[in-house]
């Protein structure tokens, strides 16, 4: 399955992926309208230090502990892709407890959110498209 992979060496810590993620998942066509004046809550997050930066989002694990821990069956995996049915999620935070990468977090509306590789946004992952330095790539590996 194609996944988003991180080339730590090339991450500039510019945070564009976070903004592109928030935009892609906003459901709004215009980025300004989607993000102006808002505090973003992206599904991809940059970790940064003085010399190292990298982006982290759902790894779509082969043996996903989040899916197996989900108390409501809201998280599921199909053909490798882990998605969340927000209508089923009650916000119990068990997935936050389980995810070894810290990649599931509450959405602004309550239920949990996670990277679904933009499959619900009608695009290839926008974080990757907008990355200026190929620090994240979307490919089979």
């Amino acid at each position, binding site marked *: 399955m194609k996944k988003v992979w991180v*080339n730590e*060496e*090339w991450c*500039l*810590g*510019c*945070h*564009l992926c976070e*903004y*592109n993620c928030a*935009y892609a998942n906003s459901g709004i066509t215009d*980025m*300004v309208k989607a*993000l*102006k*004046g*808002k505090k973003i809550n992206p599904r991809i997050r940059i970790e940064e230090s003085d*010399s190292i930066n990298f982006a982290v989002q759902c790894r779509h694990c082969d043996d996903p502990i989040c899916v197996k821990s989900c108390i409501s069956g809201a998280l599921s995996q199909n053909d490798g892709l882990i998605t969340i049915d927000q209508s089923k999620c009650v916000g119990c935070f068990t997935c936050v407890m389980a995810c070894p990468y810290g990649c599931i977090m509450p959405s602004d509306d309550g239920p949990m959110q996670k990277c679904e590789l933009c499959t619900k946004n009608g695009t290839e992952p926008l974080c990757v498209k*907008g990355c*200026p*330095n*190929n*620090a994240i790539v979307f490919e089979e590996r």
Partner: protein
Amino acid sequence: MVREFVSPQNFVPSDFEVVRNSDRCIACRVCERQCANEVHWFDADAQKLFSDETKCVNCHRCVSMCPTRALKIVKNDDTYRPSANWTQPVIDQVIRQSGTGGALLSSMGNPEKYPIYWDKILINASQVTNPSIDPLREPMETKVFLGKKPSKIERDSDGNVINNLDPQLQLDVPVMFSAMSYGAISYNAHKSLAMAATELGTYYNTGEGGLHKDFYQYGPNTIVQVASGRFGVFQDYLEAGAAIEIKIGQGAKPGIGGHLPGAKVTVDVSQTRMIPMGSDAISPAPHHDIYSIEDLRQLVFTLKEATAYKKPIIVKVAAVHNVAAIASGIARGGADIIVIDGFRGGTGAAPTRIRDSVGIPIELALASVDQRLRDEGIRNNISLVVGGSIRNSADIVKAVALGADAVYIGTAALIALGCHQCRNCHGGKCNWGIATQRADLVKRLNPEIGAKRLVNLVTAWNNEIKEIMGGMGINSIESLRGNRLMLRGIGLTEKELEILGIKHAGE
């Protein structure tokens, strides 16, 4: 802490103004994070970004990165009383020098309003007779061999042909990447050039800064340079490259040496150049062992001897007034290839007055050198490469028709790598990761991307060259070389046409 303070005596209006469309700005702060000049800053109280345009060099990094296109950089319209003579830059420079007492420093090529002869030369095409060729349907050769060509066929006593061919460089495209030292440009810029040259079947040039140990693997596509500072020159280095280039001069600053500030001499740069870390790297104006053509000949043959006569020796000179006579001397000095660098050639740093006032246009230098070598009957003894502002494929076609075997591109290659020609290489804070040694900036240039863009550019140009050649009914670049009948001048004087060796349009 107060922001940087400029005294009124030293104040000059900033060249540019940063215009932020606050309707579009989403305060993502990418501009702030990406500007090494610290033009932008976010004020948490106001929840807004502000900018200090006095620090802006107009590299366009922020503009390119802004996801909502909320930024533009415009020319500042703050003005002195207009004068055609005492123009604003002229006055600014006087004010600056009055404040500092120092020479003005600039980077990249001469930006002043001198004639660009490429733009005054037009290319021919076939109509009816000698029909044009469609490069999509018929073979079209742009491969070039650089080096001495034998004047006669020699045979042994049995009548077999003796291979009397001197070492050659094979170029799959008539374009090479010109010398830019590791130090002046970054590791990743060098790696991009090396990877692209390998993929394209051409050559990049180490410049005078030695060859980083990681790049020996690209040796077959590398030209190693020996300049007046002799930085990083040793046996392995000479043997690593496909050819050795002796740098006498550079188009951007003929007659003077170079100075890489100690700040750019990082661990890797110091190891590669074989000098102490943090020490200034001074290249003397002349080679102190070369004061005559005979001295040059000695270095040429020293290098040939050191590499068992297996590698072509290149001599690079700046285009100056008597370049034709110098080229003749170089050809007679035993060099295999001569490089002429025009006065618009780029640099990582040069005194502004030198860059903008010394040297001559490459078009005129090329035409006169080619003519001189032909007149002396030694044109085949040496190949001719030109650089110093080759901007597109048409420039290459014109250069070849004026007599060049191939061209060097430097500035165009840097633009492919992301350079936006802010011409502040000497500041060392290149926001595109090219002319800098700062690790956080260097990583902005991913060589995978850089190499791909270089390959794209040269491939595109090569296809355009084929298209233009096909239009002229020429199917091999060998047949275009020195074919000045394919060129016509426009708006040129008799003297200029005479030097260029071309007729005026309509003739």
